[in-house]
Structure formats: C-alpha cells, structure tokens
C-alpha cells in the first residue's frame, strides 16, 4: 500500500446522499478477478447523462470526491474502492460513511475523511464557484484546507499511522501470530469445522 501523508488536488462535488456501492460500481462489473480496470464502471449509470458532474470539463482531473451523507452504503464490494482509485481519486469527503465501505477504503489506501455537513456544503459552494480550487487533505496535520479555511478532522491514531506508513495489515498481525496459536489451543471442541464434510 502507498503511503498517504497529504494530498492536494481539485474536487468533484457530488451533491447526492446515500450513494450506494451499486451506483459506485454496478454488479455487472464485478466479474473481473483483478484489482484494476474498474474505472470504466465507476458511476456508470449516472455517467451516461452528459450533464452528470463527472462529465463536466471543469472537473476533469479531480482527485478529491466530496459527497453527501451515507456514502458507500450497501454491499461489501471492495471493488467500489478500487473503482474510485482506478479512476484517480485519492480522497473522499463526506459527513457520514457506511461502515464496510470505510473499512475497505482504509485497508486499500483510499483516504475517507468525515467533516460536518455544513463544511461539505461550503466546499461544494466554493468548488462550484471556482472549479480550479485547490484543496489539501493533510493526514499528518489532520485537517482539510482551501482558501483561508482550515477544517480539522478526526481519525483514530492506529488507522492514521498505518496509512501514513503504508503498512501491510496482514504483516502486522503475523507479528503476533503466537497469540493466535495460544488462542486456538484453548478453543472448545464443540466449535464446528468445515472439514471433513459431513
């Protein structure tokens, strides 16, 4: 996973709530067995509309998605995170994320940042007035900056450390694998096993 310290880029303002994972990447695109190539499916149903915000030339090249509340609801597909990353997004800002989507994003290195809805609105207004507006999302300083605005955000220290160091979660757990061995030695015999099949 690439390290994430700070990112500066332009914004795609997505004024919609409850953007579910079927909108981010519809199921028909999930048949691939790789983690790449999902950018074609990103918001594919909405992208057929020439007026959809992603099709507007002034937002071309945006790397920060700013969306309404409850972003990423629905399925557990990590393909939604990959699709956003494959397209070029580094950060998603919203006032509320679905739990599984947020967990997936933090594993895959897409930064998801929660800021209050009024700040989301302010950012939408600012970007719509000036689409070239540069916004910085600083994980080190834990804030979002644009113009004279500085918006602090919270993120737990453990997740922040992992993202800033680009650490492999599995590698971290394997360091403590002796704890897993000890736990398994004490598991009750009545717990089911899938093998041998009955």
């Amino acid at each position, binding site marked *: 996973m690439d390290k994430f310290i700070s990112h500066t880029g332009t914004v795609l303002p997505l004024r*919609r*709530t*409850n953007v*579910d994972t*079927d*909108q981010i990447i*519809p*199921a*028909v695109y*999930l*048949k*691939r*067995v*790789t*983690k790449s190539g999902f950018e074609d499916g990103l918001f594919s*149903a909405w992208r057929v509309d020439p007026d959809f915000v992603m099709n507007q030339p002034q937002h071309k090249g945006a790397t920060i998605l700013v969306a*309404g*509340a*409850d972003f990423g*609801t*629905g*399925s*557990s*597909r*990590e*393909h939604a*995170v990959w699709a956003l990353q494959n397209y070029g997004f580094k950060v998603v800002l919203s006032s*509320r994320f*679905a*739990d*599984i989507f947020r*967990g*997936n994003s933090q*594993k*895959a290195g897409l930064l998801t940042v929660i800021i209050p809805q009024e700040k989301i609105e302010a950012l939408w207004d600012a970007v719509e007035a000036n689409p070239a507006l540069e916004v910085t999302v600083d994980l080190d300083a834990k804030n979002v900056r644009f113009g004279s605005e500085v918006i602090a955000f919270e993120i*737990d*220290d*453990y997740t922040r450390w992992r993202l800033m160091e680009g650490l492999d*979660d*599995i590698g*971290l*757990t*394997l360091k*403590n*694998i002796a*704890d*897993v061995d000890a*736990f*398994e030695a004490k*598991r*009750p*015999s*009545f*717990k*089911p*096993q*899938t*093998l041998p*099949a*009955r």
Partner: protein
Amino acid sequence: MGKTLSEKIWVDHVVRSAAGEPDLLYIDLHLIHEVTSPQAFDGLRLAGRKVRRPDLTIATEDHNTPTLNIDKPIADPVSKLQIDTLRNNAKEFGIRIHSLGDIDQGIVHVVGPQLGITQPGMTIVCGDSHTSTHGAFGALAFGIGTSQVEHVLATQTLPQSKPKTMAINVEGTLKPGVTSKDIILAIIAQIGTGGGQGYVLEYRGSAIRALSMEGRMTICNMSIEAGARAGLIAPDEKTFEYLKSKPHAPQGADWDAAVEYWKTLQSDADATFDHEITLKAEDISPFITWGTNPGQGAPLDGKVPNPADIADAEDRGAAERALVYMGLEAGTPFKNIKIDTVFLGSCTNGRIEDLRAAADVLKGKKIAPATRMLVVPGSARVRLAAEAEGLDKVFLDFGAEWRQAGCSMCLGMNPDQLAVGERSASTSNRNFEGRQGKGGRTHLVSPLVAAATAIRGTLSSPADL
C-alpha cells in the same frame, strides 16, 4: 455491570488487546464465494502465504451462477472465468467448495445454516454484506471487503474496533399477514439507512421470540440496510431445535457442552445498550419500499409520498430523485402500481418457509396477464425440499418460473435481470437504482405480498384477494 450478547461474544474472541489498537478478533467461520475472493487469493500467492485454517473455511458459488441450464457450461466467458478461478483457488488451498450442480450449493447465507456450521456464539465473516443473516443464531456475523478476506485467510483473525450496541425491541403480536420482512422494513424506515452505523443491533422482544429461525434470518439479513454491519438475536430452544438435526451440529458430549454455553448467550438483565428503540408489533402492517434506498418504505395501504411534505432538505432531494427514477407520482395509492416482474428468492427470503408461504397464497390461482414471476430457491436443498412437498407444481401451475438456486435477480450479476423501466416486486434486500438490472425499478416486499401481487398484477397483500 452486565454485558450485552454481542459484548459477550466479542470478549470470547479477543486474541489480543492493546491500548490504542483495535482488538484482534478470532474468526470461527469464513464463508467464501466467487465475487469477492479472487483478488484475496492472488494476494496470498504474491506474498507466499497459506490459508491458515482451511477447516474453518467453506466456499460456494452463488452470485454469478445461472439459474437455467446449470448442467451446461456457463455461457458468459467472464462469469465462467470467475467461477473457474474460485474452483482453482479452492483446490490449490484445500478449501471445501460446493459448486454449481452440487447438492449443497446455494446462496452462502442459506448454505451455512442448513449445514449447521452456523452456531450460536460464533464469529462469522464473509465477503458479503448480508453475512449479518447468521446473527439469527446468536452469532456475531458481519460482511467484510476483499482485503479483510485475505486477512482472515492468512491469519483466521481480523483487527476490529468494538462496535456500539443498539437494542431494537419489538413487543406484542403481529397481525395476520404481517411477516418478519415487514418488521425489518418498518425498522429501516424508522431509523434510516444510516441509523445503525457503528452499531451491532440486537433484536429483542416477544414478537422476535415468536418468529421461526427463517423469520429471524430475514430480519438479521437486512441489518446492513439500516447501516449496521451485524444484527443478532439471542439463541433459545427454537435455535437449538433447528440445529440439532443439522449435519455439522455438535455430537454427544459436545452437544451438551455446546448447549450449556449457548444458554449463557443472552444480554444480562442489567446490561445497558448505547441506544434502544421499541416498536409495537400491532402497529406494523404489510410494508413496501417506494424509493431507491431501503429506508424509503411505507405501509402498503398508503400512497406515494409527496417530497414537498418532507422537512429535511437532503431527504426531500433524495425523494424527488427517487420518484423520477421510479417513475412514480406523489399521491398514487401503492396498490395501483402495476408490477411487471415478481421475484421470490434471495438470502433474505429464499428459504423453504418463504416458498411455502408464497405457495399457500398462489395455490389454485393463475398469474396476472403480462406479469412474470421468478421463483429462485436459496439453495439446491431448498429446491429439493420444495419439490418433495410439491411446491414446484404449485408455482408452475400458477404460471411462475421454477429456477435453480443462486442470488439471481437480487443483484442481476447473472442473466436474471430487469429490463430498462421494468418494475419488480422483489423479496430481496436492496432497491438501489439499477440493482436488478440497468434502469430497473424495484419495490421490496415480503413473500406474501409478492404472491398476492403476482395474482393481481399490482402491489397487493393477501388481504386484497
């Protein structure tokens, strides 16, 4: 102070706890399917890692599989590659798999309980958000993404932050014709699609205890639609009875030890929940969704809402967009809405009891003109059980299609899809835009409402017949 049920299960599975870190949780069972696992196995291979516990892992093919001609090669080459990839990965890593055509194949959340490998007090994960289904047995079960699938394959653990707890009490007696599907749709409409975020939901109260295991699975299944990763119900005699005859139920002394432990899996009387809501069962009536998220639902007796009456600006905007997508006009009685396709199936309502309930309503009747109905059993064994009872004949005589097991039209990854503008009454779990096919319009309903709707051709309950 006492503990809630989910806290007890949590404590029993903490492998490692350190200040400033999420707890490392042991995972008792890992369910796998073809869509969310290929990249995880690739990751293992790249890092030279093995599957730590193949004996706590099981795979089935469900999301992508056809429901017709399952004895022929899969026509779509991309689907075929994904299925073949799962089969190859299972073989390479020594994982039990139930492939298309196998008697134990089916939707992963139907297969686990019917094999009896879903048991109280377990931690269960799967790369699928409807893993919450298994909570019906008093297990802590939740959906994970592909990175976490890889993590569990490699370590049989997951680092997890402890969720908050919410009690959802449903007290009283349900009216005739009202099912567990109506309960959960009513709950989601009340707390919203984000209401459960960060929580484990515990469904409690006399109306929940009165439900069958199938009914409990339907409720827990849709916890994720309220934003909660997990929902659970304390195990009781019904749970033990259901498990007793299942292939992987503990045997002999292990059964007694298991039941003794399972009986401790109740929230303590003095436990406190972070949040608590109560619904009266008598207030719940057959429920449907009218919009494009599962929180946009209402009693079937009502009318399409007028967005202008919605105070919250974001909810109003969402309702306006939903009505445009759904092709509905405010004020239209729900029962006037014409349905093209009825879908009976999915991990929400594709179990034998669901098929029985629908068949009871349909028996001796004929399908409405210009309406099609797909009946897709949740597993090969559900299909066989239904055929043994003659339910297949009831459905076929009625004019419905009787298909092979799988996820099918719930998410339209296989050829079972809605066409643009086509409207469904579906016993599945999501009414998102395009969920059942690009441009398709979905109304979520119970099996009883699905059956009555297929008879009348418009959204209906058995009471309207």
